[in-house]
């Protein structure tokens, strides 16, 4: 094994969190930083001419190569898990920029009480209302502490939106249910396409409070505080599963990479597959660096003063398990922390609306659309309801591509191929829209990640295993919200509506957002979390873990903005406090 010259910080993963941390440590602390990214190198200039639905959105060219490594899935710990052999419920990114390259750009904040979910829920409803097998907990950080970091992340991305609550002042047209904000969004909301405008009018008529979805797809040209300029969105409708052709959608390659490339002290090594985090022999209390295979297959040891894992939920958790760092979670005894609190999100097409008029759905932008948060969090009284918490309803106009959407038909059409089917499918193609619901997934004792005993990756290492299912809370929540979505669809003028049939077992074959969270969760106690509220490992102070793996349970909102805000908070803690006294920050 080749031992490389030591660096101040080695960062595993070159996506949003890894590159943001690399930029912060490289520019503010003058650190030598090596970012190890196992996928390809990438530049924002790679994307023009790649608007191909088949290769990108269907064959999924930008995602991790499953032939090398995947996860296995089962519903409870009595079953034998099966590998996700082709993509289904989520789409992990690969290459420089990671999933931040091919996201939609939806950028809300989490509701304030999400950060204190356990204590707030118990305070209001009593501990007996919680499901017996829950394992929810407070994050160890409050919304008030997060607010400045949220504002910073929004300025970095240039989020286009309309504030609904500035320092307690409710503002009509924005999300009046959101947590307080220190100021307006950096740029005005993006345009509202027809289908979303219909939803907005219907929601108002029903007494709800619609607001434009906060978007990382710019409404107008913007220069961020780092001096990075991006142009306005063209509404081409090729965001999710694609890189942005014009740089209007914030991506790590167009927002962070240009700053990193200017710096000699930060390097990105692509094709570098990290195998283990190496800890000191004396009790393993310090991380010494990481081992990896470089792009030519040579085994390397990269020594570093700081080791930062930024390789998303799956790989952050798996690297700790493979490296033997911390105690793996044991679902039977409830002991151990690594792998606990695996959550997804209740992401359903609550209602599909079929119209008489054409909708011109090909025009849109990843985050373009209108939401209502009237049924989110604890914003409505749950006293008489058979579930806790909630989510937001969303009429998204992200663009509409034919391979994915041709053949979605109302219940009155009873054919799957042939002339009748073709006629109906051609007629309904541009007359169909979805009211989506994105709801909270509570953490449960029985939902976790560990190493699979059967299936291996290309190196012979065990795959990560998911044990995951929905609880009654999620099923009842979906049941509650579905008729609300149907009512909205009718109020929009739909002539037929089909409704979500209900949540059964966790379906690994149906796409439900890429918001897999947990495994290396944060918290205020080392018995119940892997990292402290500064995302610093409880036992190994020079090891930090960034990203969705640190979120204790799944809020209803899209997580990227929160993850970036947490990364800024950790960067501040490292630069302002840890460097002066390299010890535990909490």
């Amino acid at each position, binding site marked *: 094994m080749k031992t490389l010259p030591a660096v101040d910080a080695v960062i595993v993963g070159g996506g949003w969190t890894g590159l943001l941390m690399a930029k912060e440590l490289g520019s503010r602390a003058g650190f030598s930083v090596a970012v190890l990214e196992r996928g390809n190198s990438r530049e924002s200039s790679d994307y023009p001419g790649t608007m191909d639905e088949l290769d990108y959105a269907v064959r999924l060219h930008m995602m991790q190569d*499953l032939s090398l490594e995947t996860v296995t899935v089962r519903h409870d710990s009595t079953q034998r898990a099966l590998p996700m052999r082709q993509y289904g419920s989520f789409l992990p990114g690969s290459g420089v920029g990671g999933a931040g390259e091919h996201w939609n750009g939806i950028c809300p904040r989490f509701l304030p009480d999400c950060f204190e979910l356990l204590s707030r829920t118990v305070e209001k409803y009593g501990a007996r209302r919680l499901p017996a097998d829950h394992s929810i907990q407070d994050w160890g950080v409050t919304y008030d502490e997060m607010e400045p970091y949220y504002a910073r992340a929004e300025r970095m991305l240039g989020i286009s939106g309309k504030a609904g609550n500035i320092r307690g002042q409710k503002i009509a047209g924005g999300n009046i249910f959101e947590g307080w904000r220190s100021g307006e969004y950096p740029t005005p909301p993006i345009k509202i396409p027809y289908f979303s405008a219909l939803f907005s009018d219907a929601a108002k008529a029903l007494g709800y409070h619609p607001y434009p979805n906060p978007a990382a797809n710019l409404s107008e040209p913007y220069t961020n505080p780092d001096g990075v300029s991006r142009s306005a969105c063209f509404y081409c409708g090729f965001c999710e599963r694609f890189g942005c052709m014009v740089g209007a959608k914030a991506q790590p390659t167009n927002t962070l990479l240009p700053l990193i490339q200017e710096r000699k002290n930060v390097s990105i090594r692509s094709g570098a597959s990290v195998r283990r985090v190496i800890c000191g022999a004396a009790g393993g209390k310090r991380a010494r660096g990481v081992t990896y295979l470089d792009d030519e297959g040579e085994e390397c040891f990269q020594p570093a003063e700081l080791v930062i894992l930024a390789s998303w939920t799956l790989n952050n958790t798996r690297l700790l398990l493979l490296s033997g760092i911390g105690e793996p979670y044991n679902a039977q005894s409830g002991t151990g922390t690594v792998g606990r609190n695996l959550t997804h999100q209740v992401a359903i097409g609550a209602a599909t609306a079929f119209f008489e008029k054409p909708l011109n759905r090909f025009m849109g932008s990843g985050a373009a659309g209108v939401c209502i948060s009237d049924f989110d969090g604890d914003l409505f009284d749950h006293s008489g309801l058979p579930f806790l918490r909630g989510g937001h309803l969303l009429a998204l106009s992200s663009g509409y591509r034919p391979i994915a959407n041709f053949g979605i038909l109302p219940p009155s059409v009873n054919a799957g191929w042939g002339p009748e089917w073709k006629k109906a499918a051609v007629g309904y193609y541009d007359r169909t829209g979805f009211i989506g619901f994105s709801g909270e997934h509570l953490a449960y004792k029985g939902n976790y990640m560990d190493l699979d005993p059967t299936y291996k990756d290309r190196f012979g290492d065990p795959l990560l295993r998911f044990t995951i299912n929905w609880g009654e809370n999620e099923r009842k929540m979906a049941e509650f919200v579905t008729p609300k979505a149907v009512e909205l669809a009718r109020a929009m003028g739909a002539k037929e509506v089909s409704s979500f049939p209900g949540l059964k077992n966790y379906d690994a074959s149906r796409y439900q957002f890429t918001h897999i969270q947990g495994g290396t969760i944060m918290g205020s106690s080392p018995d119940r979390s892997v990292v402290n509220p500064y995302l610093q490992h409880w036992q190994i102070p020079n090891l930090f873990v960034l990203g969705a793996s640190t979120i204790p349970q799944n809020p209803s909102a899209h997580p990227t903005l929160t993850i970036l805000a947490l990364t800024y908070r950790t960067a501040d803690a490292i630069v302002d406090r840890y460097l002066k006294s390299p010890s535990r920050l909490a």
Partner: protein
Amino acid sequence: MRRREFLTLSATSIGGVLVYSLDRKPFRLFAQTEHSVRVPLRFFTEPEALIVAAAASRIFPSDETGPGAQEAGVAVFIDRQLAGPWGRDRYRYTHEPFEQNAPVEFGYQGKATPRQLYREGLKDLKGFDQWSATEQDNKLRQIESTLFFSLLRRNTIEGMFCDPVHGGNIDMIGWQLIGFPGPRMSNYADVDKHFGEAFRPKPVGLGQTSGTFRPSEDEE
């Protein structure tokens, strides 16, 4: 190397449209002329290609609603997909053991690649292209619940609506049928207009907008 097989497309079979040969040279066929073009096949034998073309035409027929799989060149599209990395499961996790009776929510767990599923499925359809439409429909109804049929149906939709660089959606007839304009760079001036009325810009494919796109089926 196997004997090179060709699928002959004639003006009478596909009407006055553009087709692409293997090296992507466009040929325009006119119904009035006797022209035909022999498209070299990459995966299918000629009899297999004829069966796939006939079956795809029953799934997505050419009728009074508009053109279908025949005119879009769906059989040529599927041939290329099967010959490429997707056809041999280049990006699928294929480690053993395989669990054949897994519940649907775990996705396809089988061992067979798309190539193998087609080759097996087509054995059961010998002579299909010679049958009457009713006989063909009856047979397809019989196999409707098979993996092979669902793959064929999915690939037919892909071949109808993919960018023409992939060999299907010839002349963008699929996109014209449903009013999809293809990879249109900017809708800035139109996205918040045309409410309640059809806005149908002329479709443009990657062949016109980008000279450099390399379809995945051409990868090794």
